[in-house]
């Protein structure tokens, strides 16, 4: 997806053509494309690891050596969490769309934006080094004292990669927060911001406040291993539980780093394909912000069985139930937005509906594992694996693909082939459920995560899961083919092919180098769609244009 050659003569794509004009660009749109290339690469690296895991688990005795299996699930976790899911929507769609959607000519700090991409790639190289040298077997969580005292692998390189990766997250998040505060076009008040902008704003706050704690945590792990001191070693006065507290103080909010921008994307898609204003806009913004805030007070639910006191377990359980309230508000509001709408089932809408369904299942099972008594049974089983994949893959990846299709004409100036895209969206939904629903059952039956072998009576469910994974693989590779084809052969896109209200649709497709000829003036709220005749009023007041 990196090389895009087509487009109108004046667009950001064709304005300059040298390699250095790409590698040294300060244009947020080009940087978004650079990020697309990087995260697509890592998505497939993580996907290869996932493929090997599912191939291995198709039979009880397996395919890989136990030690190799450990290295595969570790690499799958690290790559997918830090090198795909966390940067996925913010650095690509966010980078491209946010300045356009608020009527700005670029992000506040274009050089920092470019630096973020270089730092991301640097961290990726360090991780690839760890991978090529033999990988690590700690799991993506680097739990001490195993990671510091016993693990036989490149823990320091992997933690260093995560540490460097954090700088990239922080640079991106900082840019968005400052840009959304200071560079909104005249008339673009906070309560007129599209929900995608709110999603990116809330996620940026979480990135900024959580990532530094992870940086310090992995730094301490690397120091302990490198210097041979006992920061988390109980024999030398250290406390391994302290590591878990610090790790999850970041890594629980990290789940919301993945889901908040996805929620923003889905709000854009649903309104456009239902031709209705979002139900309860104000509630949606408060829900995003309360999820972001409450996400910092629930980390202990990862540690119910780790030896924390029952009183703190109860408090963390309660806080986790609280986070379900704004999440449910969002689901109800999306559903209510469908009511009396004029719905078309284009591919982005299919992805969005898939998101709502899968996120709901992921969220409800989240309540099950947040219940202390049930979690004692389900902790570290495939139930947990299935739960968080419903959120991260069913939720975030669906929204990422939905958003990618929706903004594809804006990004590339070409329309994607609708039938192929619908097929990919449906395959994603079917393949995903077939892969992960059996894992709920396996987990409930007691199959532990991270074990490389299992008793033969669980094989049927595991075979179903592996079969689903192969469908999912097809669903993820398909877009690479037809989107690539559309770059060269796709129909040219009009400025506003979906008749959507956002400011990004009020400029040419693809946009010119500095986004707008003149800074737009905003006179209308987002989502002024009319379900009766499908008409709309764009945020700059243009009617049906």
């Amino acid at each position, binding site marked *: 997806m990196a090389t895009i050659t087509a487009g109108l003569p004046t667009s950001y794509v064709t304005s300059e053509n040298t390699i250095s004009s790409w590698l040294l660009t300060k244009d947020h749109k080009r940087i978004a494309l650079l990020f697309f290339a990087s995260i697509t690469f890592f998505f497939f690296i993580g996907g290869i690891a996932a493929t090997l895991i599912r191939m291995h688990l198709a039979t009880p005795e397996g395919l890989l050596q136990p030690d190799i299996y450990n290295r595969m699930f570790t690499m799958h976790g690290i790559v997918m969490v830090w090198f795909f899911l966390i940067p996925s929507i913010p650095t690509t769609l966010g980078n491209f769309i946010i300045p356009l959607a608020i009527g700005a000519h670029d992000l506040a700090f274009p050089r920092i934006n470019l630096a973020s991409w270089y730092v991301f790639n640097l961290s990726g190289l360090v991780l690839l080094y760890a991978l090529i040298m033999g990988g690590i077997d700690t799991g993506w969580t680097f739990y001490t004292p195993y990671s510091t005292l016993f693990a036989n692998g490149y823990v320091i390189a992997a933690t260093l990669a995560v540490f460097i990766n954090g700088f990239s997250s922080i640079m991106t998040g900082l840019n968005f927060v400052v840009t959304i505060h*200071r560079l909104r076009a005249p008339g673009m008040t906070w309560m007129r911001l599209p929900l995608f902008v709110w999603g990116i704003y809330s996620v940026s706050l979480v990135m900024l406040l959580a990532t530094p704690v992870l940086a310090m945590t992995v730094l301490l792990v690397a120091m302990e291993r490198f210097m041979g001191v006992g920061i988390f070693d109980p024999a030398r006065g250290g406390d391994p539980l302290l590591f878990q507290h610090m790790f999850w103080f970041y890594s629980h909010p990290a789940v919301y780093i993945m889901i908040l921008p996805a929620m923003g994307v889905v709000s854009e898609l649903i309104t456009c394909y239902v031709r209705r204003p979002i139900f309860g806009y104000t509630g949606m913004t408060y829900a995003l912000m309360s999820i972001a805030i409450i996400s910092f007070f629930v980390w202990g639910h990862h540690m119910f069985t780790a030896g924390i006191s029952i009183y703190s377990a109860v408090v963390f359980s309660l806080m986790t139930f609280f986070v379900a309230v704004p999440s449910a508000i969002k689901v109800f509001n999306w559903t209510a937005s469908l009511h009396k709408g004029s719905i078309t089932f284009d591919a982005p809408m299919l992805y969005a509906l898939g998101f709502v369904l899968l996120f709901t299942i992921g969220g409800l099972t989240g309540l099950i594992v947040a219940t202390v008594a049930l979690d004692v049974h389900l902790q570290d089983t495939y139930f947990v694996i299935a739960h968080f994949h419903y959120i991260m893959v069913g939720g975030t990846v669906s929204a990422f693909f939905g958003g990618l299709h929706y903004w594809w004409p804006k990004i590339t100036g070409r329309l994607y082939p609708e039938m192929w895209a619908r097929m990919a969206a449906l395959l994603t939904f079917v393949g995903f459920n077939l892969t992960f629903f059996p894992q709920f059952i396996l987990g409930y039956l007691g199959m532990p995560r991270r074990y490389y072998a299992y008793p033969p009576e669980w094989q049927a469910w595991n075979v179903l899961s592996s079969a689903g994974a192969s469908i999912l693989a097809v669903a993820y590779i398909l877009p690479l083919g037809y989107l690539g084809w559309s770059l060269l052969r796709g129909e040219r896109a009009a400025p506003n092919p979906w008749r959507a209200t956002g400011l990004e649709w009020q400029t040419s497709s693809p946009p010119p180098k500095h986004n707008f000829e003149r800074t737009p003036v905003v006179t209308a709220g987002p989502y002024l769609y009319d379900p009766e005749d499908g008409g709309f009023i764009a945020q700059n007041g243009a009617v049906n244009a």
Partner: protein
Amino acid sequence: MRSLQPEIQYATLSQQGETAQLGMWVFIATETLFFGALIFTYFIYRDAYPKEFAEAGKDAVLWCGSVNVGLLLTSSLTMVLAIDAAADGRRRHLKNWLLATAGLGIAFVCVKGVEWCLDLAHHDVPSINFIMKPAEAPAGELFWVFYFIATPLHALHLLIGLGLILYMLWRVRRGDLTPAYYAPLEVVGLYWSFVDTVWIFLYPCIYLVGRS
């Protein structure tokens, strides 16, 4: 004097300047969490092992830490005076106050270097020559691990600050900090004060608690 144009994404220079300052404040928020996590681990362990930490902390070189507090607080004053001079367009004063700030920063690093040598001489450097005194066992080493993560990290931030001040001196020479636009200097000033503030928090943790 060069006349600066705002970058393409800004309508005016003052919007650009205010945005740069907001950016630095946000960055300082992330840095607060970064150092905060480290100081948090310190308090957890200090709470778990109060006697051992007090015993280990007696080796910390009090005069070095205290002199450094004075140096850094003074450097924040000279930095503010530099900004004041920039706002008035007094270029010679601006240059001199920046040089004074850099000088105080370098003095801090020198005192820190002397202190690290003294720590080495006292056998207080974990994983190099640490010797646990009986009264410190088993957790006294954790105090020095904290010390040798916190102080080099702080010194690294200070060195970055020194680099930024040199860059500001170069920009003063080039003549692009004018009374109409000196936001870059204010941003560096914010950063410098933050590094100063971190030391204000590290100082009691390392040198004062449990000393009496």
